């Protein structure tokens, strides 16, 4: 199971890397979305997949049963999902605003902050 999930995570991360290498902002955004999901799956998998025993302490016991599932990765993923969602929505709006204002979905033509024809430094002094 871990191997299958590892393969899937690899697929997610390579798709994300491919999309983020694009010049189009919208593809980069899709890449970020896929990357976030790949990382969440990764956290899930590194917590070891032991789904047989739920992590609940039986009545009368003081410790969870041996081999019970690891509850921590789910807490981590929940946090990461919330954060990833917030950042992705911000970037979506930012990408849309940039498209409206700069009239560009292409990062090559986004050169207002770093103009290509910047003046050369003076050689005097």
């Amino acid at each position, binding site marked *: 199971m871990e191997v299958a999930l590892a393969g899937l995570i690899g697929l997610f991360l390579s798709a994300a890397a491919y999309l983020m290498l694009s010049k189009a902002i919208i593809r980069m955004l899709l890449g970020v979305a896929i990357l976030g999901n790949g990382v969440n799956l*990764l956290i899930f998998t590194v917590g070891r997949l032991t789904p047989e025993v739920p992590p609940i302490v039986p009545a009368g016991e003081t410790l969870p049963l041996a081999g019970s599932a690891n509850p921590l990765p789910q807490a981590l993923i929940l946090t990461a999902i919330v954060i990833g969602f917030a950042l992705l929505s911000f970037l979506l709006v930012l990408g849309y605003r940039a498209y409206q204002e700069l009239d560009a979905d292409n990062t090559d033509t986004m050169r207002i902050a770093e103009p290509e024809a910047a003046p050369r430094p003076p050689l005097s002094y």
Partner: protein
Amino acid sequence: MASQPLDFPTAMIEAPTAAADWVMVWPVALALFGAGLLVMLRGQGRLQFGLAMLVIAAIFASNLYLVLRIFEAGPLAMTMGKWLPPFGITFAADMTSAVFALAASAAAMAVAVYAQSELTEREERFGFYPMLLLLLCGVSGSFLTGDIFNLYVWFEVMLISSFGLLILGGRKVQLDGAVKYGFLNLLATTMFLVSIAYLYGLTGTLNLADLIEKSGNIETGPLLAVSLMFLFAFAVKAAAFPANAWLPASYHTPAVAVSAIFGGLLTKVGAYAAIRVLTMAIPASIVHLQPVIVAVAIATLILGPLGALAQTHLRRAVGFLVIGGIGAIFAGFALGTVHGLGGAVFYAVHSMLAITVFYLLAGLIERMTGATDTLSMGGLYGASTPLSILFLIMVFLISGLPPFLGLWPKILLVEGGIRAGNWWLAGALLVNSFLTLIVMSRLWAHIFWRNGPEGERSEQPNPELRRLDRREAGFGLGATAVLMALIVGLGLFPNWLFEASGIAAHDLLSPDRYVDAVFGGERT
């Protein structure tokens, strides 16, 4: 139900945290609470500034108390919800955390005052002060947390509030800068999360103090992979070469106050996290990574000021000097000795304050000359005495010349390099100072000494110059001068900072006291 009394000897923390130790959550709690309050009061223009100042002053006071307390009692720790560490989320402060947090709050205070001189009413209503407080909250949280996943969360708090600040005002150039800043920083924090996931998979713990012990059992292969990923993530956050492209693309675009707080604080958090995680929590990684970090540090040290030399845009040039300063911190980090790490901590404190003042000064210069490019500046020497004095101090301060604060950490770092026999690093630090001095004296010559703008009219008086109005002189120049006075004072009496950075380096290299504080002395 509970008829049979159970004996839980070590299930929960039983002793309450000493009241004085709560001080380590105040910087974070106050900032969060203050930001919430200010969002609720967003219609009240007048109250915003006053309340924000009150909160930041309280944060500064708690950080000051924290530093004093750590001088007295060593590292402090508290774990949330009475869960025994490593199960509860730990907040832990040693000298490194405390002096970083103190410097951050001092810089934030100056920026909050300066912002009064340039913010439009609209920008204030759209939440400059709440976002500034949230940024400070994320920065303080990163410095004070003792849990690596929690560190990631504070990184994201910092990131999302910095997004807000960066696009506040919504000019085209800001959107352009924010796209580059946003994607590359998001990628860095995601890499950080990936590395945390692998580290958790390898050790089964997220607590930094617990990691110190457990990371020793990782095999070399996985260790190398994980620590390289951490290094990549932190190098992007710190804008170390070759991962620095986002910084000069974005830091000159927002309001000056925002540039100042970004330049002062954000990159240092990346450098802090690199030192905290790689040097302290995974000490075995440094053995393998050292050649890489040395190369990164040397390249950053030299290419930072060279980049600044090639710039004519004032704030972009400052951005490249920020990168050069990160090189110095990475140099200390690469050395990994008491001198190196002490120098890195000391330099980071210097850099947080100095870069903040530098951006504020750049803002005042832009105001007076009405230009952002040094080609169209000139004649400020005759126009403003206070600004000339402040900038001249800046020239000495940022290049590390005596008698100002920049000299002392450079001495520690160069001495560390020589003691470790790493002549390349020691040489690169000196070359960095020299190149920075060239950059600074050229800026001085162009902005202050030359009469008019570059070109045929450079010998005639600059017609574009205007005086600062009352608001700009009071809040803008006032805040800049007060922070500069603080830096000059620290530079003339640096003893306590030497002592603090020595303690900080010692506790980073042999973190027994840190581990004892977290685990209540039960581990040793």
